[in-house]
């Protein structure tokens, strides 16, 4: 159990540290690299919670797909001019105040919520005979078949839409 705690804190540090570097760096490439570190930390958290399929999806899809897309776009658009200017907008005080209010609210409910709000301990999942990927596939392709197909249509629309957006003349 101790090794689990150590791994949790290491991955939490990677996640939060990467996230903070992502939103504070001036250079967008540095932000993207920090975001990759943060996403890898989240992937480690999935592995700690025995969600092995999501761990693989997180690395293949996020780190391998979305972040490569981000790096492509960063290199396509010229960010040198933007890096020399102010990085934070004029409303950053209001933004920070709003986020601090929401954070205080969340913290209040963590510590003083209803007496039975966060009382669930860690239930040990029953030792199943099938693996995580098989369990996910069983549920995904039986109970969630219609949402799965709708998601495929959504991806098709996104592909067509991004091509239409990025192309000079249709």
């Amino acid at each position, binding site marked *: 159990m101790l090794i689990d705690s150590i791994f949790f804190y290491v991955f939490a540090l990677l996640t939060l540290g990467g996230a903070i570097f992502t939103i504070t760096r001036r250079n967008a490439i540095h932000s993207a690299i920090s975001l990759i570190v943060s996403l890898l930390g989240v992937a480690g958290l999935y592995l700690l919670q025995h969600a092995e399929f999501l761990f693989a999806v997180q690395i293949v899809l996020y780190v391998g797909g979305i972040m490569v897309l981000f790096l492509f*776009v960063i290199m396509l658009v010229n960010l040198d001019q933007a890096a020399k200017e102010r990085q934070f907008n004029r409303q950053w005080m209001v933004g920070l105040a709003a986020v601090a209010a929401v954070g205080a609210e969340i913290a209040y409910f*963590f510590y003083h919520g209803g007496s039975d709000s966060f009382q669930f301990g860690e239930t040990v999942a029953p030792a199943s005979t099938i693996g995580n990927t098989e369990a996910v596939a069983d549920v995904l392709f039986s109970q969630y078949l219609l949402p799965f197909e709708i998601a495929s249509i959504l991806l098709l629309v996104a592909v067509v839409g991004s091509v239409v957006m990025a192309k000079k003349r249709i």
Partner: protein
Amino acid sequence: MHPITTVHYLALSAALLLIGTVGVLTRRNIVIILMSIELILNAVNINLVAFSHAIGEVHGQIFAIFVIVDAVAEAAVGLGILIALFRNKETVLADEIDLLKW
């Protein structure tokens, strides 16, 4: 050292959500605003997987997969819009795109 419970994951997820919200609200660079949205979606996913693990079912992980699909579609369309915007306005700063303001 306390064992890691679901509440630890919820606190981490709340912190990641707040960091992402700060990024969306305060940065000027649209690329970094899109990255902050990815952070927010990841916070949601941590929550879903934590509850899925606590309950002992995989439905939360299915929803996390759908959230990832949404994140992919959002990033693709958002970056396509950004490229079209840069071609027309030569800027990636969100508060310089004020064509409708007069």
